[in-house]
Each structure stands twice: as C-alpha cells, then as structure tokens.
C-alpha cells in the first residue's frame, strides 16, 4: 500500500514537473498553454493525494476552467489568424534565467528543505483534551467558518480585489467605439464601389 502511494506520488510529481518543463520550452505558445493545463491538473491530483479535496476541485475550476481558457482566449486574440505569431521565442540571454533557476533549486531551496527538521503532526496526539484519537482534519465546514469569522477582513479584501481586478481588466482592454477600425457594411461597400473614382 505504501509503495503504491509512493508510485502514484512519483508519477504525479513527474507529470507536474514534466508538463511545467514543456510549458517553458514549447515552441508553440498554444502547446505551452496545453501543457500548462496538464500541469495544473497534476497539481489538482496532488491536492487529492494530500486529502485537500475542496482545493483540488477549486484548482480545476479556477486554474483549468478559467485562467487557462482565458490565456488561450488571449493567445487567439493576439495572433493573426492565418499568419504566424503562435510561435514564441526566447530572450537572447535565456541561459542566465536557466542558471538562476538551477542555482536557486540546487543551492538554496533543496538543501534548506532537506536540512530542516520537520515536525510532522502524524505522531502527535492531536488536541489537548482528547487522548489517543487524532483530531479531525479541517474540512469544508471549518474552512467556510474560518472565512466568516477569523479571516473575515482578508476575505472581504479579496472580494474587493476581485472587483477591482474585474473593473481594471475591463477598463484596460476596453476599446472606444470611435477608435475601432470601421468595418463597412455591404451597402456601404456597394455605394463606395459605385462612386466614380
């Protein structure tokens, strides 16, 4: 059973990281977006494995169902339909980024993670008061309660942030009707052609 869980974990981890590598290396930006979706799904699966079902579904709902499709939408809008433009290119000193990322991983994060003595809660016997029986894991109900009690202010701020983001996105992407390229109707085109030059 332990081995099975470990194998599943390794598969999911390989999927997440492999897909992420494809995201940053894929030549075609639409393919990169597809790999991004694969990576997000992998993260959702990892949440399931970590027994955070609610977050797993929210991950799929928000990242896969909304953010990625928004990106695909933006890619489709910022590209000439028939021409090129879907291809992406790298910054000329891309190796600097590679070195920074690799050094960060190998020299900073990995040693820190491995060196720190983590006190995992598995062995600890739960809440005071109860003995033997480990306390129940926090579920959706606790999460909902936390949002309206302890984290009410951050919750409201997040809501305001969402509203501001919504308004901001509309204002930024809005195009004045007057500034739009005029598309002649059929009647206008016919009238234009009939006019002697």
């Amino acid at each position: 059973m332990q081995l099975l869980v470990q194998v599943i974990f390794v598969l999911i981890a390989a999927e997440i990281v492999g897909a992420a590598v494809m995201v940053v290396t894929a030549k075609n930006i639409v393919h990169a977006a597809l790999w991004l979706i694969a990576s997000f799904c992998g993260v959702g699966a990892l949440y399931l494995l970590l027994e955070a079902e609610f977050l797993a579904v929210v991950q799929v709902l928000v990242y896969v169902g909304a953010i990625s499709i928004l990106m695909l939408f933006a890619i489709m809008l910022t590209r000439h339909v028939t021409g090129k433009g879907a291809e992406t290119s790298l910054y000329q000193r891309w190796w600097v980024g590679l070195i920074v990322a690799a050094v960060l991983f190998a020299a900073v994060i990995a040693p820190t993670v491995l060196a720190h003595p983590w006190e995992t809660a598995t062995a600890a016997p739960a809440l005071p008061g109860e003995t033997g029986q480990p306390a129940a894991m926090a579920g959706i109900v606790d999460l909902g309660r936390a949002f309206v009690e302890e984290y009410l202010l951050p919750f409201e701020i997040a809501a305001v942030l969402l509203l501001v983001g919504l308004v901001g996105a509309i204002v930024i992407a809005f195009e004045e009707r007057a500034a739009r390229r005029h598309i002649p109707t059929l009647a206008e085109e016919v009238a234009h052609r009939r006019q002697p030059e």
Partner: protein
Amino acid sequence: MIDSVPLEWVLLVAAALFCVGLYGALARRNAIGILMGVELMLNSVNINLVAFWRYLEPHQVTGLVFAIFIITVAAVEAAVGLAMIIAIYRSWQTVNVDAVDSMKG
C-alpha cells in the same frame, strides 16, 4: 499519504515547479509565456501551503485559507495581465516584451 511520502518530497516537487516557472518567466519573450511562468510559480507556492497544512497542522485551516487567497490573487493577476497584453497588442501588434520599448532612452 503522509505516512508513506515524506514532506521533503512534496516540498522538492514544489521547489522544482517554482524554479521551472522562474526560468519560464525570465527566459520567455512572449508576454503570455511570462504570465504562464508566474502562474506555475504561484501553483508551487500553493503546493507548499497545502503540504504544510496536511503534514504540520491538519486541524487548522490556515494553510487552506491562504491557498485560496493565492488562487484568488492568481485569477485577478491573470485577468488584468491578459487585459494589458491585449491592450498592448492593439497598439504594438506584438506581444513580445522586448519590442515594447518606447520608453527606452
């Protein structure tokens, strides 16, 4: 899960994801590609939060709450970022961040 997979493994996966995302954000010239890198980094942070919640404090909700806040921020960031990319595309006909250099001295 928590008795068969040590916490360090999960953290290493998140770290790897973060670094891959960082590389993407640094090396891509396409603005949407950069945004994808940033999303990967935010995801890795979320993995960390959930892992800490599960391994260290499973009966507190703090980790989950912060993960949800990060998802919210990521959604806002994607929406505003993509709106800006579309606005830039309209006036520059490109989404390469190098090409948008009218402020360059």
